[in-house]
């Protein structure tokens, strides 16, 4: 088995496990993720596999339900990334002259800003709702997609079959849609998987910095943060959601990388 196939297999397995956990959370979670119990801050027991948090909620159930949020935020943010980044990249790669210069400068400007800081600022301004977080992540991450697409377009536009398309009289819009886009779709799909992992990671970072979905949502990043104060009593409070983030990010990343 090649390293590439191993990466793909491992990535798909991780994503599948997490997707299943998220999908089936209401049925496989032993407790209501938001229901407080009398048993506060217990360690791992037979009833509470990962113990309970400071409000007596079952950590295992909350980690399972957290998968639903991450699997919603990640792919949606990646979709926003593609919706902005792909057309931008196509245009920036194919256009020449002033338009090209302008688009590249806009792209460079956004790439130069640190993602997390930008996301923090915008989230503070617009408030942390699910929709806002998705949009913020998409707005912060699109330049990476645009840069990738632009590079692909620039190398493709010099190939003879694009020249042939021009010579038979195709308009630029047709060349982009029918000759260039189908040939970069695969790479865009791979980049989207990587964008999913980056979005989940950034969303978790926002949560950890107190800008996750407002309580009581089972947001992995917020869970890591709120468990921080009780590390000595039940380290799983932070470690479990932290590990969930890490495995999800790894899974999507591996899937994305193995396609290239």
């Amino acid at each position, binding site marked *: 088995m090649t390293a590439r196939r191993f990466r793909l297999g491992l990535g798909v397995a991780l994503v599948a496990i997490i997707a299943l956990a998220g999908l089936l959370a209401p049925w496989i979670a032993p407790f209501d993720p938001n229901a407080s119990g009398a048993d506060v801050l217990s360690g791992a027991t037979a009833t509470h596999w990962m113990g309970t948090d400071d409000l007596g909620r079952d950590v295992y159930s909350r980690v399972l339900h957290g998968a639903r949020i991450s699997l919603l935020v990640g792919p949606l943010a990646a979709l926003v990334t593609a919706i902005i980044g792909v057309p931008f990249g196509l245009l920036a790669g194919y256009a020449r002259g002033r338009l090209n210069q302008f688009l590249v400068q806009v792209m460079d400007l956004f790439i130069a800003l640190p993602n997390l800081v930008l996301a923090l600022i915008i989230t503070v301004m617009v408030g942390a709702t699910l929709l806002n977080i998705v949009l913020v992540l998409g707005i912060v991450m699109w330049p990476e997609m645009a840069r990738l697409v632009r590079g692909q377009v620039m190398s493709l536009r010099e190939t003879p*079959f694009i020249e042939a398309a021009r010579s038979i009289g195709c*308009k630029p819009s047709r060349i982009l849609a029918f000759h260039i886009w189908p040939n970069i779709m695969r790479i865009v799909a791979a980049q989207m998987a990587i964008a999913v992992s980056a979005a989940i990671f950034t969303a978790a970072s926002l949560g950890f910095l107190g800008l996750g979905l407002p309580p009581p949502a089972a947001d992995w990043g917020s869970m890591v943060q709120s468990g921080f104060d009780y590390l000595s009593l039940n380290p799983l409070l932070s470690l479990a959601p932290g590990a969930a983030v890490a495995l999800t990010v790894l899974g999507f990343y591996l899937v994305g990388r193995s396609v290239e």
Partner: protein
Amino acid sequence: MTPLLEAIDLARHYPVGGGLFSRKPAGLVRAVDGVSFTVAKGETLGLVGESGCGKSTLARLTLRLIDPTAGTLRFEGQDITRLEGEAMRRLRPRMQMVFQDPFASLNPRMTVAEILAEPLLVHGIGDARQRRARVEALLPMVGLASHHADRKPHEFSGGQRQRIGIARALAVEPSLIVCDEPVSALDVSIQAQVVNLLKDLQARLGLSYLFIAHDLAVVRHVADRVAVMVLGRIMEVAPAEDLYARPSHPYTRMLLAAVPRPDPAQRHLPSAAPATADLPGPLSIPQGCRFHPRCPMAVEPCRREEPGLQPLAGAPGHLTACWRAAELPAWMPPPQAPPAPAAARRLALYAERRDQARDSG
């Protein structure tokens, strides 16, 4: 009669380099540097030159795939040098191109039917059914079967792909096809088939070709007239038979002498070209005649002033750009003349087989 295509002093220069803080380019690549030629209706103009002489750039200039830096281009009497956008797009069906690389010139994601129908589609010719019918008609014209229509390019061999490329060029019924080394990337056994196909199509459809090659042997077989290019300029142009019988430029003679001979005994001919220094590149075109550093005949005037194309006495239509054209020794064709051995024999053999196949079939 106005020629189908007329190029006058066509040039394409590329600025190169330039420092981080300077806007001035460090140099100028003169890929095509003042080329004039005509292609008449139904004629094939062969264009020969070694790698880097600018012949592919010239092909793309001719079709306005790249813009000329200077010069004039006329197609069917119309000045198309600065034609832009929609006006140029409407002209495109009249002039098509067959590309060198049959593997890279077809979109790998499209089926043959889609590739062949696309020129019709973008010019709004016919409806879906008529386009399909046209595809069905094109395939046998280039020697493919109709069941090939729904396959993708990767399922074909190089020769078959080149046939697809030719069919694509024919789809919109052009009057001019620019063939940019259409057989250079093919196996020798396939080359003859494709060349013969192009010739047959020309006879049937009255096409004009600008046929580019780096091999005088192939061009001899297809061209009515041949132009020889060095570093972005045409050095000699003549009717094909005349050029091979009476090459009047030292470079043309070098090319003819360099045609490979299958007989090992003839490997080291005294008349073979001297192995002097390589030709300077198009970035540093020498003063005077651009061929003089490699020319065995070069004298002082050749280093000072560039010769223009001059008619050769007693040979109508034969032009050469050489100060010493009149003084060249009488041309002795390399032994085993005609000097197109391997390819000519291949072509003859193929023509023979094809006739046999036709007779028996």
